[in-house]
């Protein structure tokens, strides 16, 4: 495994020829592009706006966290002004993400099948079915977050322009905003734990865009075969 022979394989353009040349020599040191620049930009827009929303939301939500989150995020009044704008940015970026990944994120029958093995996946047991570009757990997590985001957006609009809505609707929106913020917070803890700690290589994939062949094979075997042209 010589360093010079490493190269990035762009699945769309040159995958076939590259595979042929390197198949024999390289097994685990070749690199595959997992997220292109646009996907990474969209992801990090979603991530940063989400983090701001979560932290500023927590500041407004809990006095204990507020004491240090308020000064950190620009003070109460600024948080009140910026939180909804961050929400708009988040909603736009998630919409782009949903549209561009709609096929990769759709729950196909094999994904529901995969879910039956999710406990095995969590406890690192053998026998979990091969996953496509995203495994079913990632897909469901996305849809939980996207659905929460939609509810948070709608209830947030009511709280933002409260003089235009009825008192009953404000109260319902406060309840919905809190419940789905808790759901989203729970989901993001799982996502951040997986991406930052539990699955080494995932963070690099989202920052540099590339993964090793070994990573692709181990975590997303069906996707690996597809981009490498192996049937």
């Amino acid at each position, binding site marked *: 495994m010589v360093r010079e022979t490493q190269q990035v394989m762009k699945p769309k353009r040159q995958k076939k020829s590259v595979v042929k040349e390197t198949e024999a020599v390289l097994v*685990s040191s070749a690199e595959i592009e997992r997220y292109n620049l646009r996907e990474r930009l969209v992801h990090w827009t979603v991530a940063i706006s989400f983090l701001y929303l979560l932290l500023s939301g927590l*500041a*407004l*939500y*809990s*006095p*204990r966290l*507020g*004491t240090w989150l*308020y000064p950190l995020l620009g003070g*109460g*009044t600024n*948080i*009140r002004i910026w939180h909804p704008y961050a929400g708009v940015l988040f909603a736009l970026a998630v919409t782009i993400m949903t549209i561009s990944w709609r096929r990769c994120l759709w729950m196909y029958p094999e994904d529901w099948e995969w879910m039956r093995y999710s406990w095995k996946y*969590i*406890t*690192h047991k053998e026998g979990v079915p091969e996953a496509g570009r995203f495994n079913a757990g990632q897909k469901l997590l996305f849809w939980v977050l996207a659905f929460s985001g939609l509810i948070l957006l709608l209830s947030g609009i009511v709280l933002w322009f*409260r*003089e235009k809505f009825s*008192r009953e609707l*404000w*109260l*319902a929106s*406060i*309840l919905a905003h*809190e*419940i789905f*913020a*808790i759901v989203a*917070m*729970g989901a993001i*803890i*799982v996502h951040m*734990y997986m991406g930052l*700690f*539990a*699955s*080494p*290589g995932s963070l690099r994939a989202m920052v540099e865009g590339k993964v*090793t062949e*070994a*990573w*692709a*094979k*181990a*975590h997303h075997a069906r996707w690996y075969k597809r981009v490498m042209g192996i049937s």
Partner: protein
Amino acid sequence: MALELKAISATNYPTLGIKETERVCKLIDVSVCIGCKACEVACQEWNDTPVEETYPYTGSYQTMPELAYNFWNLIKFREVELGGSFGWTMAKYQCMHCADPGCLRACPAPGAIVQYTNGIVDFVQENCIGCQFCVTGCPFDVPRLSPKSQKVYKCTLCSDRVAAGLEPACIKACPTGCLQFGTKKQMLEKAMKRVRQLKAQGFSQAAIYDPPGVLGTHAIYVLPHGDRPEDYGLPRDPSVPWIVSLWKGPLKTVGNVVLLGGILTAALHYLKFGPMRAEEKTRG
């Protein structure tokens, strides 16, 4: 009567009060209100709130359709059916200074809403962030946002005057004795006496309006038709909205469990199972 803090919004440490203070109270005896609006004028004068252009005549004597950020004291005039005949009610409306203030419970800005040991609930605009959660929390629909400053305002029960040993401006201006001020105990006694008089005069439903849903208020009413508070523009059985209680109570615990539990579960999972390394998985 010095002001001492009893409760501070969005603050979870106890307040520092050690002084013994009596609870103060405003008594509004609706039966002797003549609708002169002296209290409205006195309120604006003492608090230096500018007079807005009056609304076009709508067929009512009421000064404004409702309270405003710069208009904290409003006599509501209503034409209603009382005891089978026409009735014209006039009742002063302002912040009730609840013992259990929904505004303070809903407020997320530390120190923006305070409750003094004497019962006055006050807004501290320097600390207000303009989110209007207090508007949602108030069962009496009192706080109002200023479009200019983006802060909320309401009646202070003249906390500045009361702290200096004076009665609130509206009380001072009232010519009929409809408005009285003193300790809550004194005012309840006066109110009870007045209710007895009214009952003797034939107002069999006369009652004190001191709603228990908010643990009582520091502005109480004597209503000749106490069974119909709506006819005086007062809500029947007001209480802090259950959603606000749920939001600031049990749901907060759920949120804490999800946040701390999630982080703890992730940490335990990492210690037990460790990371999923691709190299190990493909080697076998």
